[in-house]
């Protein structure tokens, strides 16, 4: 019988089965005893043939398994590289991630890392409280109940300002850098935190209806907040200018042995000026805290609840935006 090429598996004729059998047997087609004249010999050959066929089948399956395993390894390796890159990116962002490799380093009492951890915990707690508030509002809870939750959230805000005050003492530049926030939040940062006047602008639209008195109150609050922000910003600018003047006094770029005393004096003065940064962050946070409290005073409990939900929602969206941005596909 004509030996069909093992590679041809497109067959529509009646011989398909036989051809497939031959295909499975692979190269053995040459060994097929098409001559069935010798029966006993044929039988032996049949056993051998079957064994050989089974061996070949086993080998084939083994090859397929190996191929699958290697493919799995390859994709795992790819995933690992991706994860490593993400980790690197996250570390650069300043997110605290402990690794098995540098225990000693992470225990070095770093004020920045300590604050990052505290802030993460604070955020988690706030998410819980906000969810509680949301369900209370949605389930039409009583004013008394609402007030309890709202007061809790206000007290929780006091807590972050306390934490930030401590962090300002430990590492003012970390706070100023905003590395403890997500990128999009950082974009809108002012003196180590959010801008109260901007927040109020957002809220006015979300809080209607407001009484005439409330509108005036919120309007005044927005203006006061803006004025205080401008005043603090100007103070910061004055500080930068003053610092620049201190560092550039005397001659830059020339070497003079007699300048050492001057240099040290300059540095001492500059150090003093840097020390006042903490004060600016503290007052900026003070402004934020006072603004929130005054807002709470002007609004009813229900309105405060809506305001707090709106504020949280806004920042959540900024954080989500940051995540999307970090995960965006790049060419």
């Amino acid at each position, binding site marked *: 019988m004509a030996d069909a090429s093992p590679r041809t598996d497109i067959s529509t004729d009646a011989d398909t089965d036989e051809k497939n059998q031959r295909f499975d047997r692979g190269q053995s087609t040459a060994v097929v005893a098409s001559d069935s004249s010798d029966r006993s010999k044929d039988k032996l050959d049949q056993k051998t043939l079957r064994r050989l066929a089974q061996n070949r089948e086993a080998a084939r399956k083994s090859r397929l398994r190996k191929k699958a395993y290697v493919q799995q390894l390859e994709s795992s390796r790819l995933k690992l590289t991706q994860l490593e890159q993400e980790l690197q990116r996250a570390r650069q962002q300043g997110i605290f991630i402990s690794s098995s490799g540098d225990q000693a380093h992470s225990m070095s009492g770093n004020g920045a890392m300590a604050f990052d951890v505290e802030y993460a915990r604070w955020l988690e707690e706030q998410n819980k409280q906000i969810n509680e508030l949301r369900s209370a509002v949605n389930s039409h809870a009583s004013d008394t109940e609402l007030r309890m939750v709202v007061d809790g959230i206000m007290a929780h805000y006091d807590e972050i300002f306390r934490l930030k005050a401590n962090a300002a003492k430990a590492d003012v530049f970390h706070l100023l850098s905003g590395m403890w926030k997500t990128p999009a939040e950082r974009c809108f940062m002012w003196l180590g935190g959010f801008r109260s006047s901007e927040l109020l602008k957002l809220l006015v639209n979300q809080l209607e209806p407001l009484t005439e008195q409330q509108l005036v109150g919120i309007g*005044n*609050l927005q203006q*006061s*907040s803006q*004025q*205080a922000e*401008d*005043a*603090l910003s*100007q*103070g*910061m600018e*004055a*500080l930068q200018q*003053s610092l620049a003047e201190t560092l550039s006094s005397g001659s830059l770029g020339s070497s003079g042995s007699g300048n050492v005393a001057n240099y040290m004096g300059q540095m001492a003065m500059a150090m003093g*000026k840097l020390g*006042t940064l903490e*004060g*600016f962050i*503290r*007052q900026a946070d*003070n*402004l934020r805290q*006072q*603004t929130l409290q*005054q807002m709470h*005073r002007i609004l009813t409990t229900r309105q405060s609840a809506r305001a707090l939900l709106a504020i949280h929602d806004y920042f959540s969206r900024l954080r989500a935006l940051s995540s999307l941005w970090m995960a965006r596909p790049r060419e």
Partner: protein
Amino acid sequence: MDRVRDLASKKAAVIFTKSSCCMCHSIKTLFYELGASPAIHELDQDANGREIEWALRALGCNPSVPAVFIGGRYVGSAKDVISLHVDGSLKQMLIDARAIWF
């Protein structure tokens, strides 16, 4: 202390500062923004500067500058001024002391 009281009563709004203090610059800016013209006393330019600073600390002002007086009464430091400004009290105090008119 007498010197402080004396200086503080000379004008409706009085602020003790130091020329090198940038927070003082912020508080001054805020007062100008509100339309007030406070009397400014720079302690590092005053012969009795140290004495005055000591008296301000005794009043509880920490840091000693900026120290704000309205209508002759001690109002506080930067922190107090900002808090009072946010709840509208500062403006009212200035109006009451005739430092501003509206």
